[in-house]
């Protein structure tokens, strides 16, 4: 009887362990339904040569708090807004060619086939696909050179479905060739695109998915010092009033608030090391 009880208990325990730890830690086969809808932006990493400066800047500006963790033998800092993890900080000071920048990660159905799509479209693989606990990830540069992280999520991550202050809430593609980028990202992520605004000779395309979304517009021809990129947006209560704070913390305001730019709701800033992101109030 004891043997029977032990066997039954052991089998039950094994089933539970396989079900729970297996889902959490082992590479998963392609799921029938994606845990996160492809095209959703799921994570942001700051690649920087000044980790201490980044902690000071974003902690003071956005109220983020930081947790020291490791990825393998390398330090990795997780930033939280309240209790929610919102971003990571990676030290790239040991990499000669690395520019300080925010790297956004888009959910895809299959990292390997998506990487192949970027390659066949003229893009480059910057980091080959690899397995992490939450996702299979890769980093690519798209056909216009914009860097982008790809994440095949194994499960959803906590996050608000509506914009929340001090969280990333929007993503914008600044294109050299808007038509090419639209076609490419429709293919990558299955976006539905619609023009929401057209002024000053610039069309603004909203890339829609069920959760969140993104925008896309063409860089004016006379802007030559900005290359195509995915610009991340953090929600703030009053972007215009934060401009002075950005400067006092050692950052730079590179696009200031103005009535013609979304009704004074937007500023684009560079942190002390030069990483660029947008701060915006929404609705505006």
């Amino acid at each position, binding site marked *: *009887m004891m043997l029977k*009880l032990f066997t039954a*208990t052991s089998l039950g*325990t094994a089933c*539970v*362990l396989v079900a*729970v*730890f297996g889902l*959490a830690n082992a590479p998963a086969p392609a799921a029938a339904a994606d845990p996160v809808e492809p095209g959703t932006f799921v994570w942001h*990493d700051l*690649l920087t040569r000044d980790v201490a400066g980044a902690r000071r800047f974003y902690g003071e500006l956005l109220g983020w708090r930081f947790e020291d*963790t490791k*990825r393998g033998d*390398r330090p990795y800092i997780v930033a939280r807004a309240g209790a929610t*993890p919102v*971003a*990571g900080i*990676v030290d*790239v000071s040991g*990499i000669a*060619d*690395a*520019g*300080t*920048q925010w*790297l956004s*990660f888009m959910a895809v159905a299959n990292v390997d086939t998506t990487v192949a799509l970027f390659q066949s479209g003229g893009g480059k693989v*910057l*980091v080959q696909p690899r397995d*992490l606990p*939450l*996702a299979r990830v890769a*980093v690519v*540069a798209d056909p216009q050179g914009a*860097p982008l*992280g790809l994440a095949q999520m194994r499960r959803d991550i906590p996050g608000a479905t*509506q*914009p929340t202050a001090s969280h990333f809430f929007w993503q914008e593609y600044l294109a050299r060739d808007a038509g090419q980028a639209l076609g490419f990202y429709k293919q990558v992520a299955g976006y539905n695109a619609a023009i*929401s*605004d*057209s002024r000053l000779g*610039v069309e*603004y395309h*909203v890339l829609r998915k069920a959760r969140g979304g993104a*925008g896309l517009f063409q*860089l*004016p021809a006379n*802007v030559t*010092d900005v290359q*195509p*990129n995915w610009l991340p947006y953090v929600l703030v209560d009053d972007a215009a009033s934060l401009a002075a704070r950005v400067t006092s913390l050692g950052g730079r305001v*590179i*696009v200031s608030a103005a009535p013609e*730019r979304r009704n004074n709701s937007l500023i*684009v800033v*560079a942190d002390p090391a*030069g*990483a*660029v992101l947008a701060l915006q109030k*929404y609705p505006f």
Partner: protein
Amino acid sequence: MNSAKRVTRIMILAVVIAAALVASSCEGGVGVGVSTGYPARYGGGTSGPPIFVGGPSY
């Protein structure tokens, strides 16, 4: 199987499930953290495009 043994078995399973759920809810694996050498897209963050039409839409 008598009721005492059944209760013991249920308790063991409950402890295992609770431990597993606590472990799986830890966020030690959150984030990505891969590094790559790729030039910045803003020329050091000294200027940005002056035109921002449109905007977020939920």
